[in-house]
């Protein structure tokens, strides 16, 4: 059974069909990347999977229909990490992480510290969230998602504003989370990141799935040429690796 399964997800905004009958399956212990050109509907699909916008179709989490679950139960099962937070108030990063405990009814200092440590964001806890760089904010948002203890994590371009070192560290963290049994669905912009870190991939174009399956198969030469108009060059070019890959 898939940890997260979506069938026939369709979203219309005015005259535009943003998503047209998208199916997706994500399994536990694996990183599933959602890719596609700008405007393909990647972020919209992620919002629909999180149950955060009106969409037709059906999303199931661990076999239960998401729309039928109470909101707090949904939050305990699926954590959503936006690309940027809308928070503009003077909250400490630690308080932002504590928001992740809302669905559990209480927030303990230990749970917050553990989530900050897991996201390698301990040093940011006592700082004002709004004064952090966007990349640092993304780490705090990831820590908030971890604080929910949800088994499924949906992340919208979690490395979009991070430098290469931060980005590689973030992907290394996502790999560790997958190895610990979490289900990760990540909107990824960079094809090379998807090829290196994702187990599975869903390729979107014009609101439709044009490829789904193991990342190495989906991100092959022909689909990439069709969707992005690029040629895939395989070989040993320059390659970077995070110094600290973690346990």
């Amino acid at each position, binding site marked *: 059974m898939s940890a997260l399964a979506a069938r026939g997800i369709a979203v219309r905004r005015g005259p535009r069909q943003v998503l047209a009958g998208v199916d997706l399956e994500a399994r536990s212990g694996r990183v599933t990347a959602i890719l596609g050109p700008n405007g393909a509907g990647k972020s919209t699909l992620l919002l629909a999977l999180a149950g955060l916008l009106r969409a037709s179709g059906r999303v199931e989490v661990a076999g239960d229909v998401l729309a039928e679950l109470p909101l707090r139960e949904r939050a305990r099962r699926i954590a959503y990490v936006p690309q940027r937070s809308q928070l503009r108030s003077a909250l400490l990063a630690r308080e932002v992480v504590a928001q992740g405990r809302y669905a559990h009814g209480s927030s303990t200092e230990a749970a917050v510290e553990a989530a900050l440590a897991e996201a390698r964001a301990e040093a940011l806890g006592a700082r004002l969230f709004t*004064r952090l760089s966007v990349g640092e904010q993304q780490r705090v948002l990831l820590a908030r998602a971890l604080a929910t203890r949800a088994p499924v994590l949906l992340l919208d371009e979690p490395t979009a504003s991070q430098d290469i070192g931060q980005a590689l560290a973030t992907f290394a963290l996502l790999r560790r989370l997958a190895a610990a049994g979490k289900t990760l669905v990540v909107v990824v912009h960079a094809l090379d990141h998807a090829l290196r870190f994702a187990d599975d991939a869903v390729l979107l174009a014009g609101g439709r799935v044009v490829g789904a399956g193991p990342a190495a198969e989906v991100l092959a030469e022909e689909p990439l040429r069709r969707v992005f108009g690029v040629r895939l060059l395989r070989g040993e070019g320059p390659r970077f690796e995070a110094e600290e890959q973690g346990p």
Partner: protein
Amino acid sequence: MRPGEETRDQTRGDVAPGRRPWLTGGVLLLAAVPIVAAALVVGTGTLDDVRFGDTFLALRLQRLAAAFLAGAALASGGVVVQGLFRNPLASPSILGTNAGAALGGQSALLAAELVGIERVAPELLVPFGCLVGAFGSLAVLLTLLRITDDLLALLLTGFALSALFLSLSAFVTSLAQETFELGRAVVSFSLGGVAGAGRPQLALALPLVLVGFVAAAGWGRTLDLLLSGEEEARSLGVDVPRVRLWAAVWTSVLVAGAVSVGGNVSFVGLVVPHALRPFAGVAHRQLLPLAAIAGGLFVVLADVVARALPAQGEVPLGVVTGLIGAPLFLGLLARMRRELTA
């Protein structure tokens, strides 16, 4: 530069402003002493008067309680709507309940004069009118929100209701000019004041303000999450439409209580929470009680000023809160702008 100095410099200024709620509470309680003393002493007649000293004291205590209650309710309502709309410049009047309550109070005065209302004690006529107006306004708001429940709809509906009730209030005021006394009473009510608030009015308003305050405090943690926007709050388990509905209900209850004892007192719900945030922080469970105390003291002080200013009779309370509140608000706006561009 010593090791670690750069790190400290980088994080300087990151310390959250207003992480001193206890200190802020202590300062407010210290400020309460002279304000309460002034509220008991300032006014026509002295407490040393052998014949009327006790009466003066009793009347000023009631007046002090009414002013505090109105201010606490309006400031608490301000905290809730500013959290709900994620906008520190929102005021409880944004929901239209203030204007509805004021219309109810004025209409009660007019109806008593024109058709006579005998079932309600005369001193409770205006407070009852305010409650009917406030809850009538809330009922219209909630009915319209059943059609569409987004935040913009709430804002625009409140704005439209406010405009409607203010127009009707102007109509009632024009009708009241038929007789001098009635016209004076209606205008006086619309300018705000606690001079006429006695025990019956306090007994009517106190439960409303208490219930509104306790309920609003209960939503504090949820309102904190709304600071991150509705989408994020929902993803964290917040039932946003339900919070929005109850926040509107409890704000309206607070406003109804405030207007029923103090009439139309302006700027309190807007300025007080905004002014307190740099000292009390943004967390609602801390901000709400501090705003209630500060709002209460602000209106008590304004009432003292209203009594002390040289004028024929008293300067209306709403005029004083506006005269203090508007420049204060502009100062806060300028500071906020400086901080944003720093």
